[in-house]
């Protein structure tokens, strides 16, 4: 059934379709209507889940960990400062191999106090062992919640899906809500191999000495190495069932492109609009959408960008003292492997921090700059900065 729906509620309905057992969330700013809707669905009996209202985001993740360890399907949502407060437990939940799913609404971190969109909050959690997916529209948001459980439970790793504040979270657009039976056939009930069970006791969170810790870390990385293929299949299978396939990276007009935009989130949608305009004028611009950020889809990125001459990475984030984060990651994926990917010039643009509006003209300016310049002259090209 198609409905006009805001991004926040697309998350809520994704969680409902996934038949989550436990939702634990802190309800105060920077929280969104994601959990407001879920609490109403639970209170009205439209959802058979336990809603736990906790006193902080740290406690929200702790509650999800308990629920997940006991064999429940756990969900939470947060944003910016709330995600930052969870940081310790993000490591704990991935180390504990708990397939929790969390939605993060990309908001800028304060101070200065700001609730508008920026990607730094989620990207700053890149080393926590969580998978990360960035969404382009509200349909993808709903679908990604469901696919996230499919992926998380196969890997025994937590998954974060990310949506831009306001541009998706508070924007209404058409969303197709799949039939529950269809999702039930895609996502069977969660049956963990090991769970907290008084009849079959195990030790959880025990001390691990240097004799074993190293290998446990290796196993986590080994699982991450499998994640790209698991995620790709999950998207493919979803497409077969629901009619909307997804991949971990998605090329658009890439094959013959002289300039390739690399972006994530709603910057992708704006880029598509600009690419369509340029293509009408006969200018060969293409796109590589980074849907999955962790694990970084290195292999696919290398394959798809092999032989490209110029790449424009658009970052709505910054690693202070370094550069835009997608820019760093892309360079790390493409260079130093002697794999014949060629040596494209990579231009790193930073734009729209703290929710400053990104227009089609801004994206066109990025494309023009990249077309015009022979090679990149600086690691950060600031777009729209008032100097």
């Amino acid at each position, binding site marked *: 059934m198609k409905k006009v729906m805001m991004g926040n509620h697309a998350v809520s309905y994704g969680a409902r379709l996934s038949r989550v057992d436990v939702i634990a969330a802190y309800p105060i700013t920077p929280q969104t209507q994601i959990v407001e809707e879920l609490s109403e669905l639970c209170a009205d009996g439209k959802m058979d889940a336990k809603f736990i209202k906790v006193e902080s985001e740290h406690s929200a993740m702790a509650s999800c960990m308990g629920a997940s360890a006991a064999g429940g399907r756990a969900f939470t949502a947060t944003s910016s400062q709330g995600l930052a407060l969870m940081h310790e437990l993000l490591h704990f939940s991935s180390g504990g191999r708990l397939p929790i799913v969390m939605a993060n609404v990309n908001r800028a971190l304060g101070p200065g106090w700001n609730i*508008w969109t920026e990607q730094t909050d989620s990207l700053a959690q890149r080393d926590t062992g969580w998978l990360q997916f960035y969404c382009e529209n509200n349909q993808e948001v709903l679908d990604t919640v469901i696919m996230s459980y499919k992926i998380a439970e196969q890997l025994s790793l937590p998954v974060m899906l990310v949506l831009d504040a306001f541009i998706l979270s508070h*924007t*209404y657009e058409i969303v197709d809500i799949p039939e529950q039976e269809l999702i039930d056939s895609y996502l069977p009930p969660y049956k963990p191999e090991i769970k907290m069970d008084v009849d079959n006791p195990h030790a959880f969170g025990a001390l691990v000495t240097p004799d074993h810790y190293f290998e446990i870390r290796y196993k986590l990385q080994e699982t991450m190495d499998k994640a790209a293929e698991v995620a790709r299949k999950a998207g493919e299978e979803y497409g077969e069932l629901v009619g909307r396939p997804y991949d971990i990276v998605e090329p658009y007009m890439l094959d013959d492109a002289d300039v390739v935009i690399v972006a994530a989130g709603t910057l992708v949608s704006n880029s598509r609009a600009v690419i369509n305009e340029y293509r009408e004028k006969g200018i060969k611009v293409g796109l590589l959408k980074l849907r999955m950020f962790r694990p970084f889809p290195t292999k696919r990125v290398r394959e798809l960008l092999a032989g490209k001459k110029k790449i424009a990475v658009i970052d709505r984030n910054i690693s202070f003292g370094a550069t835009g984060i997608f820019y760093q990651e892309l360079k790390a994926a493409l260079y130093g492997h002697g794999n014949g990917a060629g040596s494209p010039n990579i231009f790193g643009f930073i734009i729209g921090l703290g929710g400053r509006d990104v227009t089609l003209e801004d994206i066109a300016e990025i494309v023009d700059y990249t077309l015009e310049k022979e090679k990149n002259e600086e690691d950060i090209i600031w777009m729209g900065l008032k100097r």
Partner: protein
Amino acid sequence: MIEIRIHGRGGQGAVIASKILASAFFKEGKYVQSFPTFGVERRGAPVAAFIRIDDKQILVRSQIYKPDDVIVLDPTLIDAVDVTQGLKSGGWILINTTREPKEFEKLSEFRIATVDASGIAAKHGLGSKAHPIVNTAILGAFARITGFVKLESILEAITEEVPFARKANVEASKEAFRSVKMQSNVTLKSKSEP
């Protein structure tokens, strides 16, 4: 693509109006996108909400700077904010006011329509007399003047999106459809009667 901006005051229902309008267009097979002013809302402060409508998937995700038409929910906003900002020449300005279109001479570059949505809302018991809820009424007037969307679609969307007093909201919308006044030099686009 059509882009519309709705001006209101915090608490007046501009965001709900944008959602109802988006739903009405969706019912007619259009692609839609609607969103509020991004940020924090204070009751009584000037706010805006936006709608994009197109025959194909809407990819642009920036703010709306050059709307085709504007809806003004509160007559006092005409003097408080520049409701014509970026408005395309010849675009509609639909104002909730008891005044006549010809009284808005300073806006003569645009097509003016007025409707006493506050009076209509109060008559149908929507909100209070001091604080009428005008968002459903004014959408009926919008359907009439622009002809972009059928009144039936607006009424259907109201029935789905408004949680209470559905009948009163529908009646208010119909009455605004009938009673909206337009600049006399403009021909009516919508011929359908409620």
